[in-house]
């Protein structure tokens, strides 16, 4: 697949760039959060070495299948969350998007602004037509992020995914098309 070139995105008070193992300590603290462990788990073993390696994998966009961004406070440089575009299919021009917000950055619109910024870049730079977002129906915070980032609700998939709690959940499917209006 075509490698994807690294990019940095400025989005108001947020800065998005490929992950760096320099933020591994904050990334570890984020991944240890129970909500994140339940809905969007990181590596199986959560220690600093594993999370450094996880950051490095996130920064390796060479196989063209994903583009993972750390979302940072543009002023302080602190990690606030991440947004990952994955399952990128340049032929079919589609991808999936996922996101996490660190416990210390919640309730400030970090995920929705980050997802909107990455989506805008992906529709332009990668020529995508459609990006999907899946979340467990009971994860209503994720539903709000999707709606605020312009991802329309398309359906409810029954018992479609086993999440970090090892339980099978119904999911909402949301998607945003290149031609959809900005939220």
């Amino acid at each position: 697949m075509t490698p994807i070139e690294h990019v940095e995105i400025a989005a108001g008070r947020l800065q998005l760039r490929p992950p760096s193992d320099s933020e591994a300590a904050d990334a570890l603290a984020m991944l240890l959060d129970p909500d994140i462990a339940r809905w969007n788990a990181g590596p199986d073993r959560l220690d600093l070495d594993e999370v450094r390696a996880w950051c490095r994998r996130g920064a390796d966009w060479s196989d063209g299948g994903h583009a993972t961004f750390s979302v940072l406070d543009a002023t302080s440089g602190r990690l606030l969350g991440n947004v990952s575009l994955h399952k990128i299919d340049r032929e079919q021009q589609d991808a999936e998007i996922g996101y996490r917000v660190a416990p210390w950055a919640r309730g400030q619109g970090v995920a929705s602004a980050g997802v909107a910024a990455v989506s805008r870049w992906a529709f332009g730079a990668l020529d995508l037509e459609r990006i999907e977002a899946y979340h467990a129906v009971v994860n209503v915070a994720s539903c709000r992020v999707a709606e605020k980032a312009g991802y329309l609700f398309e359906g409810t998939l029954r018992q479609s995914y086993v999440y970090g709690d090892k339980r099978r959940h119904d999911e909402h499917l949301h998607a945003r098309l290149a031609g959809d209006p900005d939220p």
Partner: protein
Amino acid sequence: MTARTGVSTLRKTPEVRGEGLVLGPWRAADAARVLEIATDPATRAWSPSMRPLNTEADALTWMSERTANADRLDWAVRDSASGLLIGRVGLHRFDPGCRSAEIGYGVHPAHRRRGVALRAVTAATTHAFTTLNLARISLVHATGNSASCAVASAGGFAFEGVERSSLDHGDGVRHDMHRHARLATDAGAVPRIGRTPVAINAGDLALRPWAPEDAEQLLAAVADPLIARWNPRLPLPDIDAARGWLASKATGWAGGEACSWKVVDAATGELRGSMGLRCIDPIDRAAVASYWTVAGARGRGVAPAALTAATEWAFTELGMHRVTLAHVLANEASCRVATKAGFLLEATIRDSCLLRDGFSDEHLHARLASDPRVGLP
């Protein structure tokens, strides 16, 4: 960042039997038929994966790539009687963590509108839930493909949503897609296939689906004391009961549990008897036969001929393996019918039938698809 990787250890294509068809591995000799499927306009429109196939060599490559791909399970669909390739069905996008997969299918243009897709999807779905232990199978089709939508609904795949502009079919147009899914825990874990009633030729006789206007003939026929003697639900008290009896036969066809026919003289259409298959079990591939002959038509081999024809049809068209019948011991005429039609006596089952004068033992007869053919006189 949910990982949805498709990995699977499936290597060998298992043989799966369905109603009137068999799912099995691809063969090199299928190339010409595969190409006929691939170049058909409807396939071109709705099956982008087959779009690149333009020669038999392409078809051979396609078959061998699909067979070698451990992330997929692709079957050739063959007519169980003739062995002819009539379609394809496959599972892909396996997710072992979620025990889920997606199903895809296609039917040869000469074999459409006969329920091939539904029967193939049902066989593959049954295999996926029972043998592969999957929990969820998605079925995704372009919104304009109404035939596929009908297959999804009839096969028990619940509609879940419309994915907008979801798939480029290779025609440069991105299509909206319906997503349907069936869960192993959905009611009636194996979808029953409602059938359109069909007639069967049996030489001088014909087995034809009962029609609403048969009520009066039916009422008169089952007033015969010998029929009522062996069937405590008969005779029927009035014309409304006869209409109700006919309606229940139509329900059996529609729900997939039973198939029923009037047996008539093929030339005159005159009523000779009744033939039925009930308790149709698609998992064990077994059914139960029953019959009666109108008083004026007895002693002419009507029931053995009708039973033979219906049983052969159950083996070839319904994919049944075993058809049984039971008759009370005193009903020796029925025992002769069973024997003539190749139903071996297996057992005497005690007090299994409640007649008007009390419980009666029955003979259990059965005929298997693998039993030698019987030659009727």
